[in-house]
């Protein structure tokens, strides 16, 4: 059903720490690897060894350069996948009912058995979070690893999305934003987590923890002496004091 639930019991999502992400692409590939072998159709690649390799990925890392008014330019690595919006426009536009938002946890999914590959949901998404698979002809998107997070075949501590489990820098955090005491809610509050394109009115669940303000120390040390001779005198006193 492509009407959105009025309320979801949980709001599962990711807090992505832009202050910590080093742009290593681990999450991108781990996502590809898990999802090509699990939920739904494989994430295919066309011309994988040719002139124009192109494939379906559910998570991608951009990098941006920002120029502050003072100080050097900054580079930010920017992972992006489905934000599991509360007001997900991708869901309501779907004509077949393939796109839906789960009432229990707010995860936005595509039921591939119903998808006709019209692409309208991808048009409705401001974030570029949905990719139509060239071979399967169905819309693919981040499932928040719905086939991991409740999976009894996986050890409990690993019941988290593949991207979160693999992130070497621990820049990705998974949890329930509906619970104010969850890890992600606390991070969002402490670090001033932001929504992407708030003007689009999508109310994304995923939050981005912005880069911390860069700092450059000021100050200088006070010399004990200006001349080597004076330094040796200081040294003698200092050794005496040891």
């Amino acid at each position, binding site marked *: 059903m492509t009407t959105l639930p009025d309320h979801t019991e949980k709001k599962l999502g990711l807090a992505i720490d832009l202050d910590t992400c080093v742009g290593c692409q681990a999450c991108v*590939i781990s996502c590809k690897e898990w999802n090509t072998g699990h939920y739904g159709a494989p994430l295919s690649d066309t011309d994988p060894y040719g002139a124009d390799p192109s494939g379906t990925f559910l998570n991608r890392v951009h990098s941006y350069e920002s120029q502050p008014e003072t100080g050097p330019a900054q580079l930010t690595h920017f992972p992006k996948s489905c934000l599991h919006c509360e007001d997900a426009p991708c869901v309501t536009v779907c004509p077949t009912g393939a796109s839906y938002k789960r009432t229990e946890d707010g995860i936005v999914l595509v039921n591939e058995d119903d998808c006709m590959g019209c692409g309208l949901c991808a048009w409705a998404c401001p974030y570029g979070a949905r990719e139509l698979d060239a071979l399967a002809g169905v819309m693919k998107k981040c499932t928040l690893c719905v086939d991991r997070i409740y999976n009894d075949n996986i050890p409990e501590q690993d019941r988290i999305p593949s991207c979160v489990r693999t992130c070497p820098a621990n820049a990705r955090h998974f949890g329930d934003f509906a619970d104010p005491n969850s890890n992600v809610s606390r991070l969002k509050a402490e670090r001033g987590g932001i929504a992407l394109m708030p003007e689009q009115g999508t109310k994304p669940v995923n939050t981005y923890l912005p880069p911390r303000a860069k700092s450059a120390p000021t100050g*200088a040390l006070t010399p004990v002496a200006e001349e080597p001779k004076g330094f040796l005198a200081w040294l003698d006193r200092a050794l005496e004091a040891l």
Partner: protein
Amino acid sequence: MPDLDTSPPVSDEIRKTTCYMCACRCGIDVHLTKGQVSYIEGNRDHPVNRGVLCAKGSSGIMQHLSPARLRAPLKRTGPRGSGEFEEITWDEAYNLATKWLAPLREKAPEKLAFFTGRDQSQSFTSLWAQAFGTPNYAAHGGFCSVNMAAAGIYTMGGAFWEFGQPDWERTKLLMIFGVAEDHDSNPIKMGLGQMKARGAKVIGVNPVRSGYNAIADQWIGITPGTDGLFILSLIHELLKAGKIDLTYLARYTNAAQLVNVNDGPDYGLFLRDADGKAQILDRATGKPVPFDTPAVTPDLAGHMRRAGSTYKPAFQLLAEAYLDPKYAPEAVAERCGIDASTIRATAAELARVAFDEEITLDIPWTDWKGERHEKMTGRPVAFHAMRGISAHSNGFQTARALHILQILLGSVEVPGGFRFKPPYPKAPEKHPRPHAGVTPGAPLDGPHLGYPLAPEDLLLDANGTPKRIDKAFSWEAPLSAHGLMHMVISNAHAGDPYKIDTLFLYMANMAWNSSMNTSRVIEMLTDRDDSGDYVIPHIIYSDAYSSEMVAYADLILPDTTYLERHDCISLLDRPICEADAAADSIRWPVVEPDRDVKGFQSALCDLGARLGLPGFVNEDGSQKYADYADYMVNHERRPGIGPLAGWRGEDGESEGRGAPNPTQIEKYIENGGFWHSEIPEEARFMKPWNAAYQDWAVKIGLFDAPAPYLFNIWSEPLRRFQRAAEGFGRTQPPDHLRARLKMAMSPLPHWYEPFEETATDTAEYPLHALTQRPMHMYHSWGSQNAWLRQITNTNRLYIPAAEYAKYGFAEGDDLALVTSPHGQITARVAPMAALNPHTVWTWNAIGKKPGAWALAPDAPEAKKGFLLNHLINELLPPKGDGRRWANSDPVTGQAAWFDLRVKIEKAPKGTAQTPSWPAQASPVGRGPETLAYGQSFKSDPST
């Protein structure tokens, strides 16, 4: 809502082994579904990665299934470079190799040059080379980071890199120099994440603000090649303010040792007693006593005279050197591209954190002199550095300067500082000396590589001619501890110092991105003499993939992928230890090869047996090791010490020492592919001087007796070489090298302008040109990986944004001509603001030769990718003195590829790609047109 199975089966089975997508050696859980690799994730229990895994690791499936995999031994049928081969059997391959190698071994073993690339089995491959008897063996360290390794060993018995790590848990300020990505790929990311979570601070010193430097709290966009000057300026500031750890210096370093300061042959050597023990001045008595006398407070300044010579403590010489105003921030600021105020503030910040935020651990410990200490004092400032500082011709002394900086702060091997990982720390004296004693038909007289302590340790014949083909351990590169792989092909081609017969390479793409001056190397590999034979007569190469180098070899021994092989990441070699634990690990075939391929090390066992090499045959002449796994379990380097330290002894209960255990590999597999043994708590810090650590190291088999030592702020071995250059001693350098060595082999680190810069008209070539590997391809075996190449398959030359328009470039895909004194290439350009204003850079090793790696010949890697290697030469531009000087560090011979100077201009319309190459034939065919990996796991109705 649809009925969704949220608990589907994950896979049929998990097999735990060790990753080999780079040199990081993470533990991996390989999931198998229907016998195929279906998912690879990090092993949560593994000491290296604790469950995380990088992009390379996760893309291992695509590497394992790469269409570029070689399928059988190959014999060249077309000319070198054509890529035309025929498949042969292993027997035929061994027969051919034996036909070439056996006569060499009998008559002139040095005519085999055996060099391995990103080899993680060097203790094995070197054993083979030693048994063969050739002096010509090394891995790729000479063009990788030997400056870092050697400077660390000579200064403090270990380096950054794999030898140690910041105290990630406790450090409050980490300063990284020239780090793009590193061997410790995941541990650094994990550590940075840990620091970020704690709110600790990171300062990145790098001309390029990418990767780790992008998340650093402060970025210092230094001009390439000037790090040494910046560091010495920091030292200047710290000394001037007295912000140094005098207790640490007096106790744990040779700062107090008395140095002869009279001009002449004895200058710079320590005052020693009759037992050869260096002397220090007892502050209480003013008398010299041996350095290891307990309960003595030494003086760090002053002087004494003995037998007509004056002696001063090494620290005083250091202070006098670095208090010189030439190291004042104002004096170096412009050259370094860093404001004087930033240098001053950085020094103040280092001092503040080191001394005002001192930490103590209430862990009592006993030092090597038997003195007990109630606690461990930590200076929570840590440093890490990599190729950005080491791949310069002043890299050795720059790396040494950085070590001196952290030693002055007292932050090495203390809580919060930099910590060694076993088998380090290990004093230079405890490392072997290099060997090149050749006897036809017999093994070499000792290990190839080592750490010379004096000119007498060099590998020179009676005429002063280098004994090794790469001229390692000659006056051109006295401390070339890792050999000089980058010189092998050019020296072999030139017949200088002699001609060779067979070049045997493993896992080293010398015909492409692993060589400087790639175009010329290709010419050398294909050059023929007057009789029409190749100048380098035979080339044997082992690789798992159809790399560029494959096309230039005569005989190919196809290696397996990393999931199909046995390996040991051994304490004899480059283990996976941590600061708190010893550890080693294995690889084992989690899937069996579906091709006629063999792990290279197993092939060496076979070949060694066919050649009758000692150690590879039993007394009856039969083959000793059936394969590498057999070697891993049964080889003993010393009695009871083997490649693997875990589950030794007949009962499998011993660690470190013990008889071979036939079930050892099974034990490793049961334990997730690794062995891990924690260092006792009181032995975890102050390791070089900590009696408990020394005893533990003996117990575990790292040493046979405790081997405590002091850090060398003053390097006596370096002085011995400098002294020879001044004309003293039996072994002296040739005259043309004297001045350079006198300058370079300084016992205290100093800074000099990189050679290429001096030899180049910097007005004509105003820009520094650098490369770095993207994290998702760092140290990874080719970029033909179907997933990774979608992320990066074309590189651009990044140009400072402020300069971009000046050259007439617009946004987009503009083409530039990039020219160095050595050549010209075309490159696509793009602007970058977070970049040192005198620097351009690109992602390295993206460009591929058409036809290689089973890629389509019109792949972007071949059509748009480019290598800066074509612009770099292993020699400096001619100076007009009739000689061609090596473009390398004069101390270690490390290739100085970061010294490159270039100019750029907008390429006229219609400029063709330069250089360009005809496509080589692919001996493995081409990859498929589409991939839908995972489909086969799903198609079975039973799942």
